[in-house]
């Protein structure tokens, strides 16, 4: 199996507090991988390090040559709570932001970009809310807007930070369906995931981390009670 993303001895720290520590993770190409671990385990930090938005203290990250290193080669879905949803803008305009990485300096999004944004909204069944203010959306709708914004980047790798946090069951089902479609189209999907009960159902691969790597590999062999206990300190109640 080809490796899409591999970290070697990755260490990232905020104000001398390590967030991830000598982390070695392999994320396979064209798979759905869950990053699982307790609060403060460095899951979001790992995504940001791969994306290149936090500075590495040491170690390295290598990407498969097919991913490319142009701007916006990696589609990113940040945590929903990371932005102010009272910002004066519409659903459509937020999705259009996904095309900005391709624009040259001083260039404005044109007809092509607008058509692509509308297309991405259709994929997440939000096209009828294109002109809605983002402040008037439900949690699930907000998440779908962020997903559409990442899709419009036309990346081959997608990193998503807890896309199921605070969304309704219908949105969760829709997101999984859309992600599987992306996987069939050859994309690599990486999710920070909190709900241990659905890991086995949703993901081919799992990386259990708690600052360091606990275990990483195909879900059935890796996502065991022993490994979860190693990552969390005990087996959380939500696991059957």
């Amino acid at each position, binding site marked *: 199996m080809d490796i899409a993303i591999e970290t070697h001895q990755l260490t990232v720290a905020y104000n001398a507090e390590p967030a991830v520590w000598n982390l070695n993770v392999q994320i396979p190409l064209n798979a759905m991988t869950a990053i699982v671990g307790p609060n403060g385990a460095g899951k979001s930090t790992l995504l940001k390090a791969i*994306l290149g938005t936090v500075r590495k203290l040491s170690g390295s990250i290598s990407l498969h040559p097919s991913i490319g290193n142009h701007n916006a080669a990696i589609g990113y879905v940040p945590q929903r709570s990371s932005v102010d949803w009272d910002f004066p803008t519409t659903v459509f305009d937020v999705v259009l932001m996904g095309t900005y990485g391709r624009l040259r300096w001083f260039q404005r999004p044109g007809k092509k970009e607008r058509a692509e944004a509308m297309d991405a909204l259709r994929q997440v069944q939000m096209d009828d809310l294109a002109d809605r203010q983002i402040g008037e959306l439900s949690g699930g709708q907000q998440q779908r807007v962020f997903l559409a914004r990442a899709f419009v980047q036309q990346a081959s790798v997608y990193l998503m930070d807890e896309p199921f946090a605070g969304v309704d069951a219908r949105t969760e089902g829709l997101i999984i369906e859309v992600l599987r479609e992306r996987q069939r189209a050859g994309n690599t999907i990486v999710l920070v995931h909190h709900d241990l009960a659905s890991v086995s159902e949703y993901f081919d691969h799992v990386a259990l981390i708690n600052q360091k790597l606990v275990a990483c590999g195909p879900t059935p062999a890796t996502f065991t009670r022993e490994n979860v206990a190693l990552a969390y300190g005990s087996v959380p109640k939500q696991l059957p």
Partner: protein
Amino acid sequence: MLDFWSDYTIQLVVLGSAMIGALSGALGCFAYLRKQSLVGDVVAHSSLLGIVLAFWFTYLLTGTASKSIGILLTGALVAGLASLFLTDLITSYTRIKPDAGLGIMLAIFFGTGIMLLRFLQRSQPAIPGINGIDDYLFGMAATMTSGDAWLIAIVGVAALVTMTLLWHRLKLFTFDADYASGLGMPIQMLEVVLLALIVIGIVVGLQIVGVVLMIGLLIAPAASARQWTRSMAAMCVTAACIGAASAAAGAVVSATGSGLPTGPVIVLILSAVFAFSLVVAPGRGLLHRRRKVVS
């Protein structure tokens, strides 16, 4: 009244004030949406020290008093940025949190500025023109010259052109900096550009509003405009209009003989606009929301 409208000086003051209000109002939207109101207030208060130092150095070097806003506002700009730089330095190397750091810098810069101003005003022999610096505390639109107006026009056009050319990137950065960074945008550069625009929005307003109340002209138009608009572009245009109208009206009231400093008059007008917007704006106003709850 007829006399008033034909008076060239008053026309100049009204026009200049309107330009300043428009510029501060538009650029204030970035400060408002990035939740940097306190940062704006620190820059405004700290700039007093820069104004006093610029006046003093010019006097020491040339022996004459400078009333050129080019020199005084350059001093304001440097002091405002220095206060932010020092805040950054303190919060990076100690456990002081950003809001406390900003509060400390505001107190130090403004306090030193006032001390130095009073010291210079009492020094013997008297320094000519030093008492005019008092106008920068609460603003005095009436002292505006055509040279001042031209300088503000040039700075304003430059700031607005920069804002328009980089509009999409600045908007994305303001909304979601993490995502902008993930798209490979040079976010440190955007951060600097945005900070520079906000600081320019503050410094140009000092002459008419003064350091103490400048935060009002920066934030109140944006907060009012947010109530009425559904896009960031519309918000900026609306805030510019509110800022321009309030500043012009304040300048008229202040210049027509009352002798009131311009700043408080403008801020009172802005407060009325803000209160009105807060209550009656469709969709976001308190009246509307109350009706929604009732129905």
